[in-house]
């Protein structure tokens, strides 16, 4: 998910060419107080007009009492796909925002429920409430970790060079909550745009934990994150073989599917499907090949 500050007209226009899976237009932390109103109109108009192709469009709104209500009204009408809440602490935060989204959908005739949500957890209360937050709304498609604010509330700071142990618990809570509910888990940004090695290591680690993706702040980071999440050729071949085995078993009318002496049960099939989906998204696989 690539962060794009909403005040930058040039970036808004070019965002989709960078190849990120989703673009997050930020109306919150990266926008100065004086430019909240203008940035909102900028993203509103851009999302209405520009075709972002297959890239998912997300907007990070301000807190409801800091302009978030107008942000929601603007972006629901503009056709944004996902609204990301900042600093989510409780399930109620999600519900409060959902109420505004629903009101906006009603007013402008957009299909109720079509605007999805994403919750960013950026503090200890949110982390401890991760599960209830994840369960709070059908619109929620994922939860993310915002580590910068989190470590400040925890009275520490980021130590990417020391494996980021300080956010290990938060990451764990979030990925567990996401998996328990069946939504996506998104990791925090990596701020040093010049350090590709640590970015790669960190991305490999969070993939290992089970995260679905990572937020980036610079187009240069996209290829690195994608390559970590892109299945290897071996993994893809394996997944395709599993698909073949399934087709074969169906053709024979057999109830049991096996490949190379091993039973293929539901979790394995799901994993194979995920692998192929990821591979397809990364552009390294096309169905039917």
């Amino acid at each position, binding site marked *: 998910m690539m962060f794009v500050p909403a005040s930058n007209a040039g970036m808004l226009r070019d965002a989709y060419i960078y190849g990120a899976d989703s673009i997050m237009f930020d109306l919150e932390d990266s926008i100065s107080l*004086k430019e909240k109103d203008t940035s909102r109109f900028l993203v509103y108009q851009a999302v209405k007009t520009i075709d972002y192709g297959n890239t998912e469009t997300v907007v990070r709104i301000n807190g409801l009492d800091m302009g978030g209500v107008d942000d929601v009204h603007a972006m629901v009408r503009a056709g944004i796909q996902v609204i990301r809440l900042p600093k989510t602490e409780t399930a109620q935060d999600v519900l409060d925002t959902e109420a505004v989204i629903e009101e906006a959908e009603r007013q402008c005739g957009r299909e109720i429920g079509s605007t999805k949500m994403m919750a960013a957890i950026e503090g200890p209360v949110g982390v401890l409430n991760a599960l209830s937050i994840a369960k709070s709304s059908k619109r929620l498609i994922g939860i993310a970790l915002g580590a910068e604010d989190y470590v400040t509330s925890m009275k520490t700071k980021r130590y990417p060079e020391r494996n980021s142990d300080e956010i290990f618990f938060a990451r764990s809570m979030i990925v567990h909550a996401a998996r328990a509910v069946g939504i996506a888990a998104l990791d925090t940004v990596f701020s040093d*745009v010049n350090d590709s090695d640590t970015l790669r290591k960190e991305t490999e680690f969070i993939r290992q934990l089970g995260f679905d993706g990572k937020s980036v702040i*610079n187009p240069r980071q996209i290829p690195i994150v994608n390559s970590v999440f892109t299945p290897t050729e071996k993994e893809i071949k394996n997944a395709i073989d599993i698909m073949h085995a399934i087709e074969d078993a169906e053709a024979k009318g057999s109830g049991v599917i096996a490949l190379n002496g091993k039973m293929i049960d539901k979790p394995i099939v799901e994993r194979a499907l995920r692998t192929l989906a990821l591979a397809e998204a990364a552009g390294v696989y096309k169905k039917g090949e």
Partner: protein
Amino acid sequence: MDFSIVRLWVKRSKKDREEWENLLHRSGIRSEELVEYTVGVYDGEKLVATGSRYKNVLKCLAVSREYTGGEVISALVSHLMADVFDEGYASIYVYTKPESVLSFLYLGFKEIERVEDKLVFLEKAAHGFDDFLENLRKKKVDGERIAGIVMNANPFTKGHQYLIEKAAKENDVLHVFVLSEEMSVFPTRVRIELVRKGTAHLNNVHIHETGDYMVSSKTFPSYFLKEDSEVTEIQASLDARIFKEHIAPALGIVKRYVGEEPLSFATNIYNGALKKVFGDSLSLVIIPRKEADGKVISASRVRAYMKEDRVKELENLVPETTFEYLLSPEGIEIKKQIQKRSD
């Protein structure tokens, strides 16, 4: 490139001030005291550009050589402009060296005037210089001999009155321009009012404001001019050109009156520059100052007496209308302000 624009606290932080001055010096320009708001553009941890504003004038703009090319200066000027508007001003000014003019034209600024290869004065405004001149033209009064005077009048003294009376007598129409900028202990509104009151008996005198187009030496930025050079002369030349090329034609002025200042080196340079620029197109008439008790009457003398509470003696230096004001509650407030200052 990932720039961040950060405020530099050049008046409060020694560290910020040092960083600021280093960049300015590397860019061949000087720092100035009269700045209200300064920002630095950072590429990561490195300070690569800076810009300041004083009221609605942009100054001390510097961009490191490796970063020239438009992006940084656009971001810098956009930011400063937004700040100027936030402060409630509707127009923005820049004094800069000729080599930088293109960058500003590119950002939508319009050149008002220039002094040869030394300095250019630019403006960006919805209702700017053109509107100002248009309004002046509407106030044109016909006459054979039309003259003009520019003064600060801080406050209006018998010396000012004398100059105006003389010019009014020798001409059919006299236009008096009072400096609009709020840099004096007597607020603009008061200075203009005292000029009006002190000239009410003359029916061919018309009072105007200079707007943002003529400033005092305190405001005039010189950060990019060579150290000690002809700052006064350049400023005077700019004022002279603005007067000669734009203001005078709008009203049909053919003569400008100024007071002589034998003891002020700066005023002499100023008057000298006026004469040089005016050449043959516009007459410059230098009038000796009126005296009282063997000394020249000047606004600074009046302020000095106010500071020392020499009320009786003030009566000799200012017209009744001004004296009345000095004794009023408002006038006493101003006297207290003068006394608080150490100059």
